């Protein structure tokens, strides 16, 4: 009885989460440029459209470039900071950990508006690279949290053994620390990458008037009427996120990663 009830409950939640995607997937295979569900005819041409139509292709290229670079920059900011906090006793330096978590905790509009006024004041408004820095700062929380978790998981006796054998900080970092935190670094990068790919408001407020990322392109297209390409892009994004998170789960400990992420968040 309870088993049945539980299964129904999980089914309904699953349905709620999946329903929009099912309808959007249906819309994406319409044969003509109509927004019909159940789809009329079957065609995968709207998936081809993402890569063939220059506007959508440029947006895809802009989004992927932005995500690759900003996630890398986010890790480059988070790695030395979390290493320092792990290696040294410097309580005041924790303030930077706090600043790193702030952009993700506050409503996104605030970070976006702060960056907009900043780039406008400094005169760099609209330059493509400002979006890379903006996203890196906005998403630095993710590698910061995964890396702090990775560092606390390191057995200090390993490091001590290496130090006793005469290794200096640099050697220890390369030969002991880096291999141990690599999975955490990769998952931090993956989280930042996927979220940057999907991010709208910060990208829009920093470079929205000069270039289009995919979310910006979808939003602009929404205002001028529907096209099934939006649906195919949506499915492409969901699939990408699912593949990346599955890989993280496959090569890392996802429950552990999430167990600590949320408690750090608080």
């Amino acid at each position: 009885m309870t088993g049945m009830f539980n299964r129904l409950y999980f089914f309904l939640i699953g349905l709620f989460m999946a329903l929009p995607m099912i309808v959007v997937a249906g819309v994406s295979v319409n044969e003509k440029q109509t927004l019909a569900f159940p789809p009329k005819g079957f065609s995968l041409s709207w998936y081809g459209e993402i890569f063939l139509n220059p506007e959508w292709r440029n947006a895809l290229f802009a989004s992927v470039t932005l995500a690759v670079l900003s996630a890398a920059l986010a890790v480059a900011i988070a790695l030395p900071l979390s290493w320092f906090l792990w290696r040294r006793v410097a309580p005041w330096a924790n303030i930077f950990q706090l600043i790193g978590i702030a952009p993700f905790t506050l409503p996104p509009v605030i970070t976006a508006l702060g960056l907009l006024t900043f780039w406008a004041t400094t005169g760099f408004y609209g330059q493509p690279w400002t979006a890379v820095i903006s996203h890196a700062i906005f998403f630095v929380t993710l590698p910061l949290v995964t890396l702090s978790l990775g560092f606390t998981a390191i057995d200090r006796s390993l490091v001590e053994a290496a130090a006793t054998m005469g290794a200096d900080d640099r050697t220890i970092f390369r030969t002991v620390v880096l291999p141990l935190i690599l999975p955490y670094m990769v998952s931090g990068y993956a989280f930042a990458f996927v979220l940057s790919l999907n991010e709208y408001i910060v990208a829009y407020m920093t470079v929205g008037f000069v270039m289009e990322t995919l979310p910006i392109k979808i939003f602009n297209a929404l205002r001028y009427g529907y096209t099934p390409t939006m649906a195919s892009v949506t499915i492409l994004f969901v699939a990408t996120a699912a593949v990346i998170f599955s890989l993280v789960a496959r090569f890392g400990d996802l429950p552990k990663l999430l167990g600590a992420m949320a408690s750090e968040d608080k």
Partner: protein
Amino acid sequence: MRREAPQKIGDYAPLFFPAMMLIVFFVVPFATMIAVSFFQRQQGGFYVPAFVLSNYERFISWFFANVLGFSLMLAVVVAICCVVLALPFTYLLTRMKRKVQIVWLVALLSVLSLSEVIIGFAWSTLFSRTAGITNLLVMAGIMSEAKALLPSFGAVLTGMVYQAFPYTVLVLYPALVRLDPTLTEAARTLGASPVRAFFTVVVPALRNTIVATLIMVFIFALGSYLLPQLLGRPQHWTLSVLITDQAIYQSNMPFAAAMAVFLVLVTLGLVALTVLAGRKGEAA
């Protein structure tokens, strides 16, 4: 190697790059925004440095009070819906096999990472007349004619609960994983039904977690900037939508900044409450 205090100035070197980036690109922009909120707006979308309170004075109006009241009400409703839906779900999830848990977590993370643009588009399709859910009901013979379910308050609420649900599960997850399973076992041994054990043992044991989660989801929902715009009518616009609108379409940066500062204060006050609730939880 034990942790030690930095000995010489060189030991601080690794801190230099992250600290510089965070200060220059987060603290300074934040300060810039606060400064702009006191600036004087000029015709044509520009603003000049000044120290005026007129941007803040605009808060004292019925229109603003309505927007604020609606934003807070909407976020409260979203937070309650999400926690009510997610608490039993997450509890049961943590009792499942690891493999099943991972599948659900991957799915929830995928939904959570979705852009608000995409969520808005997906739900507006689902609620539309031509491709919406009503078509399925017509096919099933429940309804006679397909119709659009948006723009409406229900559409905004559904979209926002959809967006915040995975977040709620992930916030609850660590606390529920660590919950001692012997607690419910004891209740079951003493004859309580699973449902009763859940409400009389699990829920009270997690009271502080639930309060903290409600506040976290509330803040998350306050940040929603597109869904009220895509799924609702203008009277369903929230503070976040209004800030975006003022900054981009009305080009009134000082007023947008003033509202953003206000939103930060509301959020920080709530974060302080969360921390307080957490402290109490540790003490108990």
